[in-house]
């Protein structure tokens, strides 16, 4: 059974005219890693907000269609109930800290306190999350004294302890330095390996190509394509949609290196292999 079933989802922000989401229908299976790409304004963040219930419970506006997550209807559920199913992580690690807690452990406990989780259970989940994200050494630090990459991992951990089945990440690394970006990607990869469903908006197509099982390309609030990375990045009109394929794919396209069904390599490894095949047979 699909984990997430979205049917003709439409949404318009208050005081605007254009539909931010214009008839999305798709399904996501349990444990998939989904990348969402597209130009600014394509509807990526709005889709994240819809999957996590912020649309329509935090942002009002006109809503049509439905999202079912694990059998619960997002539109008809309360935000705090949706939060148990879906966690969301935003771009700016800074505004995700509560500002009311002065250690990382207490910061992580915040969501569980709201859900009335007993203390012993909190401690267990916090230990698990700290270990999984490799931030055990930060447990007693003040959240605001951390680096961007560390703070963003704390933000992810603070969602993780609520044991959601799906984590939605809206450009979680765009404000981080290369090291912080790498730390966060590794952490997300580990979550994915543990069987968690990951939905991630990201401009870095090289990363998406490496990590995602399937990639959704949005434009003007609609799905242009929703395919495995190799198929999606092999499409010919991506630039018109405001997306540059991974540099590896651009190289392969330039060299006309593709498989029998016309798919280009999209990751460093596959491109190295394919180029070697062609250029060493000469």
């Amino acid at each position, binding site marked *: 059974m699909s984990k997430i079933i979205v049917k003709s989802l439409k949404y318009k922000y208050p005081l605007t005219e254009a539909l931010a989401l214009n008839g999305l229908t798709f399904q996501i299976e349990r444990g998939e890693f989904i990348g969402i790409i597209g130009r600014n304004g394509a509807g990526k963040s709005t889709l994240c907000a819809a999957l996590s219930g912020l649309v329509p419970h935090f942002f009002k506006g006109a809503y049509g269609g439905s999202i079912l997550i694990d059998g619960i209807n997002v539109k008809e559920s309360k935000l705090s109930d949706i939060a148990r199913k879906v966690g969301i992580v935003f771009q700016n690690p800074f505004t995700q800290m509560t500002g009311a807690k002065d250690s990382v452990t207490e910061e992580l406990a915040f969501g569980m306190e709201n859900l009335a989780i007993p203390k012993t259970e909190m401690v267990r989940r916090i230990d698990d999350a700290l270990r999984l994200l490799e931030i055990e050494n930060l447990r007693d630090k003040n959240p605001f004294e951390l680096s961007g990459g560390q703070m963003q991992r704390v933000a992810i951990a603070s969602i993780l302890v609520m044991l959601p089945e799906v984590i939605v990440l809206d450009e979680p690394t765009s*404000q981080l330095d290369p090291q912080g970006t790498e730390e966060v990607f590794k952490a997300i990869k580990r979550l994915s390996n543990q069987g968690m469903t990951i939905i991630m908006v990201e401009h870095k197509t090289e990363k998406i190509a490496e990590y995602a099982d399937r990639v959704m390309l949005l434009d003007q609030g609609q799905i242009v394509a929703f395919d495995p990375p190799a198929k999606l990045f092999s499409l010919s009109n991506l630039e018109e949609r405001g*997306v540059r394929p991974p*540099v590896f794919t651009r*190289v392969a396209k*330039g060299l006309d290196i593709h498989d029998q069904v016309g798919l280009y390599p999209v990751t*460093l490894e596959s*491109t190295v292999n394919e180029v070697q095949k062609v*250029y060493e047979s000469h």
Partner: protein
Amino acid sequence: MNLIEVRNLHFSYQNDHDVLKGIDLTFDHRSTAIIGQNGAGKTTFVKLLKGLLKPVTGDILVNGINTKETSVAKLAAQIGLVFQNPGDQIFKSKVYDEIIVGPRNIGMPADEAENMTKRALEAVGLGSKINHNPYDLSFAERKLVSIASILAMDPRIVILDEPTIAQDDPGKQLIKDLIKKLESEGKLVISILHDMDFVSETFTRTIVFQHGRVMIDDDTKSVFSQTDVLREAYLEPPHITQLGNRLGYSETYLTAEQFVNDLLMEKKLKSNIN
């Protein structure tokens, strides 16, 4: 001629430990990327160039003027700094009004100020949005507003702190073209960046900062050929450079186009020999 000279620059915020530990650099008109880990001192360095902070020891000369002996507002006509977060400056309710603030502050004649404002708006592709409220625009567009507001003051030196944050590919392309255009007009663009692919495609010169010191300072190609040193600074070469390295090419590739051209050439040569 050197537009900026930095001599034996040391800086610390609270006399405890030095954020910058002895920097000697000169800048000519070549576009220059500054890369390095967070906390390496990059932002502190550009604030010093701009005169927002003053050296503890050492001197900075901008167009021959020592930053210690002038005010930030007076330097504004010479050197512009675009902050990382556009929200740190925008206070007008129309894009046009926001951008003309700088030219007026530095006492530009009215018609020239209007002219420069319009040109700056065209340069960042916001010509059609001059009457919008900046806060109705996306974050990426607001960033372009803040870039335009500096360009409109027509400074000889433009510093950009993380210009590509939140930009999509068309936005990055626009900023890349803009930097190249400014360089060709003889202006100096200095930019702090985390996106190595963008650096390799855009900048002539690259400086690597680590722990308050300059670790490498060279043309971009030479910098990205020093894989081991980069790794020490927790940086990775651009993806295309990595591809070239993995395939065993001695050439340090900076763009996909260059890589493709070379390989096609190689193929052609080989087939001619055969």
